[in-house]
């Protein structure tokens, strides 16, 4: 019988072979013909980590780093390893309570998983890092990790340098193909934004193998496919940090701006916008809150008033009117105009002039005679050869455009405003087709529809200094390692003003401007030993139908021969141009030309102008409103607190004394609080933070 069944042994062998064939068939299918498993395996095991390079460092004209990187520390935790942690002592180090600790750990596990490292507390302060570093061995699962953050060693030029912030979805939409992803930081304003491409460097990628719980196991293929990160390029500015510092100091407790330009290169020497803020305030873990603080401040500290706001240039515009009038030949240096107290040409009694008498061109500039320039402007528009105001205004504008007015200059900072040069179409809308020069006479003294940014004004000063040419004002002088994206090309083109303006005309205007400082309106701002040419401006302005204090303007350049600095200053709602803007400008000019302020009188001037407070009345009201709202909240909080305290523990004297004194405090504070604007470098910033903290604490209590 076994013999009979022997063939069945063969059958069993065949069954074995067939099943093995099926298995091999499936192996062929899986291993040789299916691509998706390879991809799936890669998805499983490959962890691509983007390596962020250090951003480029920004240096000032003397090679001082004014925006660089520093190491900050994050407290990192791996929840699965954080067992047997002395929670109480950790919490006391971090100033949190154990409930908060548990909540954070829970959130982290929910967000990032149990076994992956997560950031428990980002960007530790220096003292907190020191405390934790000593004790970190006590907390298993916790570790300190480095991270690079931006820091501003001089705490100045926040507006110019800008800040970086985590990108949001709208940013990602706008920069789709530039490789940003959620969680990246990008420059949002200032140079950080306009030179983002240069500063950000080239991100690298490292490939890791991870395990089923996303823990990193080691490099993938020994880093064969990794790319190294290339650090961002360093940038050298034309900005002088000492000048910027002085400017910000002088502008403290004021609202306004200073822009100084090197006329030879167009390089911006300083750009102050007041009120300013300590740029370090917008780095670190509290960035979001601080940002909100600044955004809600009625003084609009985030606005760069150097180029983000335009003003009526006031009498400083007379230089342009004079230049065009002289070029058009409607006057010459010797033309005189009488001023009986007002401009007589239009019969409206406007504009008024302060110094009565007869003026030639030089003296008219020196004393800023309204009648004279109204006459010049009227004559320019009334020239019979242009047959009508429309075309005459067009001619006027064709000059003015070459001065960089009415258009964006193209400064290498974001959100530049273009100002305004009115065209005839504007006036046809207002006055009808038969408008004439008297309708628009206030333009003659820079009070009408003419608007300029402060950079434009400084640039006009540079043009006059150079007698007819300029480079577009810019901040960046050079980029280390070459200008790969041709960002600096626009600043190498020399622009010339209208060729109808001869050099003699510039000389005449310079004469006038020199007279302004020597015996004219700005005589008090004379710098001994330096020939400065300047022009003051006092701009009347109204808000909500009420006359406000005048804007104080001053535009200047120095020295007259081989000019090295052109400057424009505005101090909003302060006083006459000669009283605020001019002295400030003179101090900046002296500081730049001489590296220091000479003489005790001039030194005292620094302190005097630093301490002057010119907060526009409207802003004062807003600040007071905001503070009173806050106080109201505080008081309410305090009351609740008091009630709670009473309920819980009546006996403690310490606690009951506190709430009683504090509600009494606020009436005293507003006087102190209101005029303190955020000022760089010094305590006010810190004071604000402390206040905020107190406020926050009371809220959470």
């Amino acid at each position, binding site marked *: *019988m*076994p013999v*009979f*069944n*022997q063939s*069945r*042994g063969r*059958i*069993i*062998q065949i*069954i*074995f*072979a067939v*099943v*093995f064939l*099926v*298995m*091999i068939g*499936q*192996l*062929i299918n*899986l*291993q*040789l013909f*299916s691509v*998706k*498993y*390879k991809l*799936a*395996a*890669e998805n*499983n*095991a*490959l962890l691509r980590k983007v390596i962020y390079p250090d951003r480029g460092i920004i240096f000032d004209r003397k090679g001082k780093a004014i925006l660089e990187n520093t190491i900050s520390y994050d407290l990192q935790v791996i929840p699965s390893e954080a067992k047997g942690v002395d929670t109480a002592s950790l919490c006391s180090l971090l100033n949190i309570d154990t409930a908060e600790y548990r909540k954070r750990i829970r959130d982290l596990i929910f967000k990032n998983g149990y076994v992956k490292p997560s950031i428990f507390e980002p960007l530790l302060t220096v003292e907190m890092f020191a405390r934790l570093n000593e004790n970190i061995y006590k907390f298993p699962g916790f570790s300190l990790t480095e991270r690079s953050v931006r820091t501003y060693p001089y705490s100045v030029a926040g507006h110019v340098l800008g800040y970086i912030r985590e990108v949001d979805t709208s940013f990602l939409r706008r920069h789709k193909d530039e490789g940003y992803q959620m969680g990246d930081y990008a420059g949002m304003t200032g140079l950080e934004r306009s030179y983002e491409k240069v500063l950000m460097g080239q991100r690298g990628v490292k490939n890791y*193998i*991870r*395990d*089923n719980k996303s823990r990193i*196991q*080691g490099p*993938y293929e020994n880093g064969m496919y990794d790319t190294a990160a290339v650090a961002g390029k360093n940038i050298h500015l034309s900005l002088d940090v000492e000048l910027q510092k002085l400017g910000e100091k002088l502008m403290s407790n004021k609202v306004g701006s200073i822009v100084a330009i090197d006329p030879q290169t167009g390089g911006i020497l300083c750009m102050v916008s007041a009120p300013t803020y300590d740029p370090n305030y917008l780095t670190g873990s509290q960035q979001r809150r601080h940002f909100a603080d600044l955004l809600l401040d009625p003084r609009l500290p985030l606005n760069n008033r150097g180029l983000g706001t335009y003003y009526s240039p006031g009498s400083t515009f007379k230089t342009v009117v004079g230049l065009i009038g002289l070029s058009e030949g409607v006057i010459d240096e010797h033309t005189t105009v009488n001023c009986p107290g007002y401009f007589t040409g239009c019969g409206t009694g406007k504009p008024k002039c302060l110094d009565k008498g007869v003026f030639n061109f030089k003296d008219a500039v020196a004393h800023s005679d309204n009648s004279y320039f109204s006459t010049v402007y009227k004559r320019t528009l009334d020239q019979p050869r242009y047959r009508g105001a429309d075309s005459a205004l067009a001619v006027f504008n064709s000059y003015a455009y070459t001065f960089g007015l009415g258009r964006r200059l193209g400064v290498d900072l974001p959100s530049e405003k273009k100002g305004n040069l009115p065209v005839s179409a504007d006036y046809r809308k207002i006055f009808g087709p038969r408008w004439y020069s008297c309708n628009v006479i206030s333009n003659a003294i820079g009070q009408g529809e003419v608007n300029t940014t402060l950079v434009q004004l400084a640039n006009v000063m540079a043009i006059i200094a150079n007698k007819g040419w300029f480079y577009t004002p810019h901040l960046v002088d050079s980029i280390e390692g070459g200008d790969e994206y041709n960002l600096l090309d626009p600043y190498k083109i020399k622009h010339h003003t209208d060729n109808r303006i001869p050099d003699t005309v510039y000389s005449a205007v310079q004469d006038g401007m020199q007279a302004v400082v020597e015996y004219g309106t700005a005589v008090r701002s004379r710098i001994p030993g330096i020939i400065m040419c300047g022009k003051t401006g006092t701009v009347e302005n109204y808000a909500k139908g009420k006359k406000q204090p005048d804007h104080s303007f001053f535009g200047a350049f120095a020295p007259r021969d081989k000019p090295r600095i052109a400057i424009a200053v505005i101090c909003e709602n302060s006083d006459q141009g000669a009283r605020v803007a001019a002295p400030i400008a003179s101090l900046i000019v002296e500081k730049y030309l001489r590296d220091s302020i000479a003489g005790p009188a001039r030194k005292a001037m620094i302190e005097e102008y630093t301490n002057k407070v010119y907060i526009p009345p409207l802003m004062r009201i807003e600040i007071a409103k905001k503070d009173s709202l806050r106080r109201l909240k505080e008081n309410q909080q305090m009351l609740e607190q008091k009630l709670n305290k009473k309920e819980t523990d009546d006996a403690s004297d310490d606690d009951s004394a506190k709430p009683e004194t504090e509600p009494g405090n606020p009436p005293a504070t507003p006087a102190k609080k209101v005029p303190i604007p955020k000022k760089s470098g010094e305590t006010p910033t810190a004071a604000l933070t402390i206040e905020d903290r107190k406020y926050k604490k009371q809220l959470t209590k």
Partner: protein
Amino acid sequence: MSNRNNISSQAQGVDWTVVWLYAILVSIGILCIFMVEYRVDTNWLQTFLGGKTNYSKQLIFAGFCAVVATFILLTDSKLFTAFANLMYAFGILLMLATFVIGKNISGSKSWIPLVGGFNLQPVEVCKIFTALALAKFLSRQETDFTKLKSQILAGVICLLPAVISVAQHESGMALVYFSFFLVMFREGLSPLVLILGFSFVALIISTLLIEPNTLAIILTGIALLVIYLLRKSIKKSKGILYLILVIWFACVGIQRFAVPFIFNNVLECYQSARVYSAFGKDYDCSLNKRSAKKTDKAPRKPDDYNVRQSKIAIGSGGLTGRGFLKGTQTRGKYVPEQHTDFIFASLGEAFGFIGSFVFLMIYLFLLFRIIKIAERQRSTFSRVYAYSVASIMFFHIAFNICMTIGLFPSPGVTLPLISYGGSSLMSFTILIFILLRLDADRQMVLR
């Protein structure tokens, strides 16, 4: 001197090919386990000598197995025939004992704790005893295997351990006991049994794959076709028509009622889901009566994570594989149980198609070698035993590899000689070396 003679005479006739294949496979196994456990940053020599890791444990098992193998080769073949029934009874007792002193390891209470932290799984060892008992039964002079009665008795011997292991929730191991039907087929069991069994499996699979009504129509169509083809024979005898009708009725009944009944009432939810997912279907656990009875809350839907990851690992190996210790999936521990049931996944990833093919060929060669050994036996006992060894190993290999490559629902059986685990390695060692001992005495007629 006489002693030495004795030993050399004992070693005579041992099939060294099988011994070498055994050694190669065990070595591959230890390497695979090493591959799974290896960490770049740890000093493997230290951990190896420390004996804490699975690969060093497996090496200790292997050394122990070598000792046992030597002992087996030194014993007398008559021992196995003499004690076959007794050992079978002992094995059954051990399996029953797990209900009392069993230890729960990963959901199945089929382990008996031994000294030194080692655990014994009786169902693994019981395969040997069953093989011996079956061989003993079929080689009895009074057994006439053409008789239905002895066929049923043989079936009972084979399936008794299977029934017990189902009760222990080790249904995968139970499946292995069906391998003895291959042996019985060789010894004269009607091929009808195999064909019926195969047809039943085919019917279940088609039930899963094809929509019930469509399948019923197809079955009816087949029946009508057969009637049409056999219309002349039917005219001669009505019996054939009735037979066809009965088969048709049974088939429809099975696909309509029996299969859903099995999935919903007999199998656990996870088992049903595994079977379904192997064929690319989702099983709705809310239909499952057994799960519903056990827990009040709705049973969680288990997914085929293991198999999916295993397929990814094997598929990513490609033609030549990623290389030894370079498998990303293996190192990332993406495949669960990759040192035991799913060890083939790491092998497939590291060595690719070529490696897997060579590996399977080693197995096939071993199986064919055992069958060759079986056919050269003079005694029925040895032949039946040899076929049992081949069939058991074949079932293990087929189930395990089909599971890892997604051809079959995962029943949870080990890969012989490769998977980590002392019980498994030991039982296969004993199986093979008893065979070698019997083969060495192939000239003897054993009863």
